């Protein structure tokens, strides 16, 4: 009997050698005459254990990791094809505590099968929602989204159903769905993992959103830094089209929906929705003034539903299980689950999907196991480069939009970047300004000029010159940027800067010897 062995194809797994491991397994199996079929699945999200290889035994899937090519022979020797004992054996995959304690809804299928195997997708619950949506009218679909309490996962957390309803209510004519897959925030990779690991779910969500809003054309704007996601999504579009789930006659319903993949070109600001629309039109990615909102006048001036990958990727679960079932998870006004992403200096980094409301501590120390370096924890940055730093005293805070906002922080796209006590927070503040200067679209002065002045001024502080006066100047710059920037690039850059100064003032004040950077 042929035994299936799963070796992830996810970029993170490949970045630590999964391709070489797959080749070694296939060579060793051939040498031994063992009947093995290698399946390149998506990653399970336990990234610190990659390459995590699973063997499908008669008693279920057993995990081994992290596997390196030179261990492969000893794994066969240990009888791993029957789940044999080995130093690297992690046990039945489903029983690994790190995975078992999660609530995988958006990522329910992550890592289970070859992501481009459409038959496997259906076997694992795919297309249930789309078939169901084809029998519902627009109002009924939007009512489910409303009942779910789904809020945009791209960062702004705006209630999804309001945008859907606005687009649906615009007069008939060309409308679009634009999926924002620009995922530029440091510390985030959930969009990438969904696109590489369950691409049909995103397409299914897009088609359903098109049915509900009357849009018949979709675009997925993927950053160029994600070549594997671009390739996987492109192939998924071809297969979905060939199977009749995209095109002129979606699922034989007579309804039309098409999807085009577009790639970005190395500009963080193109994650801001109006800059993304400009870029999709083939132009410079400059931010548009609002109003009008994209739901009324978006791509090519037409009504456009703009959503993050995770927002659209969660739609099939909601429609298949009902909005109420989704809303049963979560805390306060943050309903459902969030895919938290643990990165940076953390021992057990990866993808952790949990209901909103989990504490930072549970994520950083529970799932994360503290720092990777073994040195004491000092800070974590939540919600990407525009998000706040938190200190150890704040670890009890729940990860919920309102609770974090009340504490001067933000959840953003769910990234959590951990730092140990060797971090120099003045340098991180300087980097926040530099990143803003580098990525500013240039449309407004507070952002374009303020960020450059900010980086220079923090540089002065690091050099130990006029620290008090320069700190006051930084505060002034932050105030102007917060109040007068057109978008959150300039408007939120003060968030990491101010939180660093407020919580770790000693890194700014104690520059007795000065340093040049």
């Amino acid at each position, binding site marked *: 009997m042929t035994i299936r062995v799963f070796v992830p194809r996810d*970029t*993170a797994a*490949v*970045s*630590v050698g999964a391709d070489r491991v797959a080749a070694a397994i296939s060579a060793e199996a051939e040498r031994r005459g063992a009947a093995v079929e290698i399946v390149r699945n998506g990653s399970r999200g336990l*990234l*610190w254990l*990659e390459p995590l290889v699973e063997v499908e035994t008669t008693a279920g899937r057993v995990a081994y990791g992290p596997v390196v090519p030179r261990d492969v022979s000893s794994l066969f020797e240990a009888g791993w094809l029957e789940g044999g004992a080995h130093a690297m054996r992690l046990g039945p995959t489903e029983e690994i505590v790190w995975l078992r304690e999660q609530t995988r809804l958006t990522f329910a299928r992550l890592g289970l099968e070859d992501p481009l195997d459409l038959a496997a997708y259906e076997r694992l619950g795919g297309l249930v929602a789309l078939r169901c949506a084809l029998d519902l009218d627009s109002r009924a679909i939007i009512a489910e989204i409303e009942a779910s309490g789904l809020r945009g996962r791209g960062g702004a957390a705006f209630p999804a159903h309001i945008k859907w309803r606005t687009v649906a209510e615009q007069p008939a004519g060309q409308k679009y769905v634009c999926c924002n897959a620009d*995922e*530029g*925030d*440091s*510390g*985030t*990779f959930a*969009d*990438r993992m969904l696109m590489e690991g369950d691409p049909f779910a995103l397409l299914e969500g897009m088609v359903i959103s098109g049915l509900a809003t009357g849009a018949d054309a979709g675009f997925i704007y993927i950053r*160029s*830094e*994600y*070549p594997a996601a671009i390739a996987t999504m492109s192939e998924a579009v071809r297969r979905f089209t060939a199977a009749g789930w995209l095109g002129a006659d979606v699922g034989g319903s007579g309804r039309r929906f098409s999807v085009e993949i*577009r*790639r*970005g*070109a*190395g*500009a*963080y600001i193109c994650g801001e929705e109006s800059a993304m629309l400009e*870029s*999709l*039109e*083939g*132009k*410079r*990615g*400059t931010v548009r003034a609002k109003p009008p909102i994209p739901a009324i006048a978006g791509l090519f001036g037409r009504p456009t539903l703009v959503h993050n990958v995770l927002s659209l990727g969660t739609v099939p679960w909601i429609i298949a299980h009902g909005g109420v079932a989704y809303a049963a998870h979560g805390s306060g006004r943050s309903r459902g689950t969030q895919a938290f*992403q*643990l*990165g*940076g*200096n*953390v021992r057990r*980094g*990866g993808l952790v999907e949990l209901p909103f409301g989990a504490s930072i501590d549970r994520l950083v120390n529970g799932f994360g196991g503290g720092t*990777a370096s073994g040195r004491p924890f000092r800070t974590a*940055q939540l919600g990407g*480069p525009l998000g706040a730093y938190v200190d150890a005293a704040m670890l009890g805070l729940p990860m919920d939009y309102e609770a974090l906002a009340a504490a001067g922080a933000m959840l953003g796209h769910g*990234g959590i*970047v*951990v*730092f*140990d006590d060797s*971090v120099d927070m003045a340098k*991180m503040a300087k*980097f926040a300004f530099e*990143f803003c200067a*580098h*990525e500013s679209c240039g449309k407004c002065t507070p952002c374009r000029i303020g960020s450059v002045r900010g980086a220079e001024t923090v540089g002065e502080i690091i050099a130990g010159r006029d620290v008090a006066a320069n700190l006051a100047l930084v505060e002034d710059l932050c105030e102007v940027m917060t109040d007068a920037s057109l978008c959150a690039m300039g408007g939120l850059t003060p968030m990491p800067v101010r939180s660093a100064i407020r919580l770790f003032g000693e890194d700014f004040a104690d520059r007795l010897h000065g340093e040049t950077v």
Partner: protein
Amino acid sequence: MATPQSTTDTGLAIAACALHGNRPTALLEVLHEIRARRGGIDESDLRAVAGALNLSRAEVYGVVSFYGDLRVPAGDPALEVRVCLAEACRSRGAAELAAELEQHGVVVAPVYCLGNCALAPAVVQDGVVHGRADAASVLARIAGVPA
């Protein structure tokens, strides 16, 4: 800027535009294509693309100069190392890694997040993302010795 030198060969630019139906909205894809094939975008490309897509040269130039990927000429992919210098990678010494590589004469191009933040620091060599990078492994790959 992305104008190494002007050539008179506009065949590539014109073909790239045609491939995308000469639609002005496909400008980014067209420019990606030219850059991938030739390593950079020069003055004659700007004019050829402008002509084929019915745009002004200034519009095409404006787009090239806006985007990080298009602005800089592509380096030799075998020699250039892209080092992620965003926060998660910094928390694991990415800035120090970049400095160390430069000391070894490596051409370092910054990139801001590769979506591999759980396995930081991350680098790209020859189009492939590598996690938990250190100078020794990067230099070994440049030398063609697999780590």
